[in-house]
Structure formats: C-alpha cells, structure tokens
C-alpha cells in the first residue's frame, strides 16, 4: 500500500507524458483547427466576378453537383505552389473548381491567373475577407469539397499536394458520386 503511494506519481507522470507525446509523434498537424462547418450547409454569400469576367460565385452556384471550393490569393505564396495541382485536378476530377479570391487586388489576381493558369470554373472576389471568415477560413489556401446538396464535406487548410489529391480528394469525390 505504502509502496503504491510512492509509485503513483511516477505512474501519473508516465501516463501524462505518453498522452502528450502521442500527438507529437503521430504526424498530427496541430496547427490545423478542426472546423465546425463540416457537414453543414455552405454559408450564404454572393461574390462579384473579377473585372471583365461574367460569373462571380454565390452559394446558389454550389448546389446540384459535387464541387471543389478553393480559397486563394495572388499574394499567397503557398497558393502558387498549389496552382499546378489544381490545374491537374481540373483536368482529371470532372467537377467544377470554384475560386474565392481572398483580399486581392483584381489586377493582381488576373495577372496571377494569366501567369499560372486558371483552373477555376468561376471566381468570386472576397475583397474584405468576410466570405472567407463565413467559411471559417484563417488563411489561404484552403480547399473545401461541397456535396450535391450544398453541404461542406471536407476541408483542408493547407496547399493540396499531389499525394492529397490521390489519397484524399479523388477517393472522396468518388465516394460522393462523381464520374
């Protein structure tokens, strides 16, 4: 009994240390904030198009078929790295990729798209970031998958890599019923 009392603090310490060590070594990215918006309908919004373009982006556009929504900006360096992946996805995934251009100057955004290619079916300009905030975003790039009922089913708050596309995005799109 007495000996147990001496061992108890050590056991407690080992238990806590293990508990705290697991997330450090199992590859969890603790900078990712879990989103309460998963399985929720997309927020209601209506964003204007880039100058010279016809279609912006509104919540009404996100109903009826599975779609990818990508928040990007010309000032965002990781977005540049992600752009080729989105270009590839736009050719292989057969779902619309919608862009939310976050806090960008229209001319910068147009230059960015001319330079790197435009994978987007349509782009809405979120000049004051309010719509990004409605999507629970905290930076760029962020990628969402929205199902045919207009519900957010997936979110990644980091640039998509080819591995993400192969291991996560394409399987999920297949599961949600796209060709």
């Amino acid at each position, binding site marked *: 009994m007495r000996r147990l009392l001496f061992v108890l603090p050590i056991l407690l310490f080992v238990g806590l240390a293990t508990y705290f060590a697991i997330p450090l070594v199992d590859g969890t990215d603790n900078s990712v*904030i*879990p*989103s309460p*918006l998963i399985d929720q309908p997309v927020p209601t919004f209506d964003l204007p198009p880039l100058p010279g373009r016809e279609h912006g982006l509104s919540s009404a556009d996100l109903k009826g078929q599975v779609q990818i929504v990508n928040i990007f900006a010309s000032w965002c360096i990781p977005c540049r790295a992600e752009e080729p992946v989105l270009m590839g996805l736009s050719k292989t995934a057969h779902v619309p990729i919608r862009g939310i251009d976050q*806090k960008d100057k229209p001319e910068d955004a147009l230059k960015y798209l001319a330079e790197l290619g435009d994978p987007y079916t349509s782009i809405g300009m979120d000049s004051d970031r*309010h719509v990004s905030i409605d*999507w*629970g975003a905290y930076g760029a790039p962020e990628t969402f998958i929205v199902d045919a009922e207009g519900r957010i089913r997936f979110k990644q708050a980091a640039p998509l890599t080819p591995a993400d596309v192969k291991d996560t995005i394409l399987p999920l799109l297949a599961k949600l019923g796209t060709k």
Partner: protein
Amino acid sequence: MRGWVLALLAALMLSRPAFAVDPDEMLKDPAQEKRAEAIGKQLRCPVCKTESIEESDADFTRDLRKVVRERVAAGDTDQQVLDYMHARYGDFILLKPPFEPSTWILWLAPPLLLMAGGALAWVVIRRRPAAAEPPALTEAERAAIEALK
C-alpha cells in the same frame, strides 16, 4: 541614479499592454468600441493561436476585428458576436472554452487535483504520530550541567 531607476519603474508601470488595434479600426462610439475590445479579448487569433484577436498584428486578424466591430455596430449582443465566431471556428476561437462533456476534464481537473492533494495531505498529517517527548536528561548530563553553573 536613483532618479533614473524610479523614472524607469514609473514608465514600466504606466505602460499598457500593446494592442494591435489601429485608431482607424475603432468604432466612433466609445461605449461600442469598449464592448468590441472586450469581445475581441475573448476571441483567440486563429493565425497566431496564443494571442487574442485584439493583440494580434496578423492581417487576417485585422479583418476578424472588423467583423466583430461591424456586428457590434449592427446591434448584436456580446453573446451573439461570440456565437457567430463560434459557429465558424468552433471551440478553438474561444479563449475561455465552454463547459461541455469534451472539456469537463479541462475545467474539473484543477479543483479535483487540489481536493485530492488536500485530502492526501490531511490523511498524511493525521496519521503522523505526535512528536515524542524529548527523553529526560541522564544523571551524567545533569551532573555536567551542575558543573557548568
């Protein structure tokens, strides 16, 4: 020298924690601005994570502050603004997390551990035998004391 030290101490005491709010972000109505600041201090910056949105200099956080101020100006109650952010960013955004099953351990651990420690201390102190009387002096010791007098 002493004057300098005093001046330095005074300056340190007068300084306020630096807030990142620019004057042009502030609401015109001082009462509303005060409320917005109080709300912002309860919201955790999702970019920098260890600061409130009132303290953070991140560009993104500026826009979060703006949203808070817009909602306050539009007549939202404090709770409505907090709920608005909570609906979008979850428990993460609240510097003071709500009391719910997933946070019970967080809230209850400190008082429970304190009580457990107190109970343990109580038991240990009660069990310890009262300090024994010091043994009486031997004849030889008494003799030695007498000799000293």
